[in-house]
């Protein structure tokens, strides 16, 4: 008997992780996907523009030019994207607004990713009472009046751009949690989970190594849907006067201001909307590329 014990093959996680890991494979496949690589390059370019674009213009984002109200785009005046209804340069404002929108998008989506995936995977995998309790908390948070949360946060902590990130992030992870939990309920019954359980793998390890990797496809797709939602929620808050404060701005705020004068000064809508749309398109293709790259069946 005692000589036999040494030969029982044990499941060694360190050995399983060496060789071609999921992430190495995914990275290799992602680089081969032309749409995804192109999207990443354009996104990088937009990021650089947003960070350094204002240096290319002689104007500031807050200074009004009373003699050039609603000017059309022209190279001669240095207003590459024209000016808005109080003569502020739209090129610099679009870049400045991009910083806020991209930051809101990234931070709130990051929160949705971390909390939403962990919450949903744990609720779905553990099941029973824990699942019931966790998902009822999500139900309650869904129905709570979001605007009062924002107003309360502002009263307690003062007006602060970081608060908008926190407020949106605290609300945007709920959908992710529900979707992840739904997938986990189905994954939990699959043979490979049963096999892992039979081998005595701990629940924490099963969730992290077997459930989460199988969720990544749909998570990647949903993340690309979350970024535009966050940017639009932010613009809605700004529209109500609860978001970014003038003269600071965001893409959402610029688009909603531009939409009001879209017949007389269409450039006010066009340029911020084009940047917003380009960003979302690229995220879409990058997300699909990620999804394909992370699919274990697609070798």
């Amino acid at each position, binding site marked *: 008997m005692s000589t036999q014990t040494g030969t029982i093959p044990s499941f060694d996680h360190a050995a399983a992780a060496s060789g071609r890991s999921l992430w190495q494979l995914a990275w290799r496949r992602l680089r081969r996907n032309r749409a995804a690589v192109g999207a990443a390059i354009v996104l990088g370019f937009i990021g650089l523009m947003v960070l350094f674009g204002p240096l290319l213009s002689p104007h500031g984002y807050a200074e009004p030019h009373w003699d050039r109200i609603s000017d059309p785009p022209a190279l001669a005046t240095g207003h590459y994207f024209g000016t808005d209804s109080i003569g502020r340069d739209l090129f610099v404002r679009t870049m400045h607004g991009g910083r806020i929108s991209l930051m809101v998008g990234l931070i709130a989506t990051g929160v949705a990713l971390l909390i939403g995936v962990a919450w949903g995977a744990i609720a779905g995998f553990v099941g029973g009472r824990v699942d019931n309790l966790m998902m009822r908390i999500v139900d309650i948070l*869904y129905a709570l009046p979001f*605007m009062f949360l924002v107003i309360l946060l502002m009263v307690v902590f003062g007006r602060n751009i970081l608060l908008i990130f926190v407020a949106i992030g605290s609300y945007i992870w709920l*959908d992710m949690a529900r*979707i992840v939990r*739904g997938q986990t*309920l189905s994954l939990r019954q699959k043979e490979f989970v049963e096999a892992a359980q039979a081998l005595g793998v701990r629940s924490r390890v099963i969730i992290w190594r077997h459930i989460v990797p199988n969720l990544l496809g*749909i998570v990647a797709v949903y993340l690309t849907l979350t970024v535009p939602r966050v940017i639009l929620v932010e613009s809605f808050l700004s529209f109500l006067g609860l978001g970014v404060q003038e003269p600071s701005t965001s893409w959402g705020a610029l688009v909603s201001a531009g939409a009001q004068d879209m017949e007389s000064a269409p450039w006010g809508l066009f340029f911020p909307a084009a940047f917003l749309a380009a960003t979302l398109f690229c995220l879409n293709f990058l997300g699909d590329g990620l999804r394909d790259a992370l699919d274990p069946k*697609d070798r």
Partner: protein
Amino acid sequence: MLPRYILKRLLGAVPTLLILITIAFFMIRIAPGGPFDEDKALPPEILANLEAKYDLDQPLVVQYLRYLGSVLRGDLGPSFQYTDFTVNELIAEGFPVSLQLGGTALLLALVFGVAIGTIAAWRQNTRLDYALMGSAMTGIAIPNFVLAPLLILVFAVYLGWLPAGGWGGGAAGNMVLPVIALALPYMAYVARLTRGSMVETLRSDFVRTARAKGLPEWKILCKHSLKVGLLPVVSYLGPAAAAILTGSVVIEQIFGLPGLGRYFVQGALNRDYTLVMGVVIVIGVLIVVFNLIVDVIYALIDPRIRYE
């Protein structure tokens, strides 16, 4: 097993809603400002009379218990802003409008979204796929407050085919534009989710088996794959249905519709406490019900899913 589960969940809805009402009540009250704040401050005597009329002079806990008692009797209280109406009346008036609009939009979004997503997944990484997903992304990127005026400009002002706004007692012509504006973003979401999950499903072993035994392609798509592939869409639909059926502020304002959505934002900005609470309760009930339906549908599409 399932009927017992449904019964358990329905019983569980009572404490869920109670907790929701409690948190929402105190959150709304703690927020600064009051329903009688005006540009010109009211004389203190009038303010005191008003507050006494609505019990606002009582301690918060007493107000809470009284409110809870009246909610249990089915009375959501008087509105502070629409002084001639009770919250029950306002909701009874606005909810059918939102329901009709939202229900139609939801159906539209679901049918077209699933169809578009399935076709895109079936022809993955072809031009058709890129074109469909590109337009879906456009639908997501264009905010409501841009899309709705554009639709009015084209179809009502230039072409003159449809009315620019108004409810008209729910006439079909008045419904077309708001339903489209409401449905498009949801349709795009559903299409993206369907495609993502169908791409994965179409690679699974059972689809390969179905192909190997020579089943026609439409049968593989519609009968075998969609059942599994719709799982994330179903998850998304629970909260989305609650949101779409309680109306959209933006759409209602632009098209001048008497729905429920505007009450939420107006009520919040005016601190119309009872009106906001009424809408919160409606949303809460819808969410509890839809998420229960979603969980039941999970068990129907994937019989392996168990809830114990």
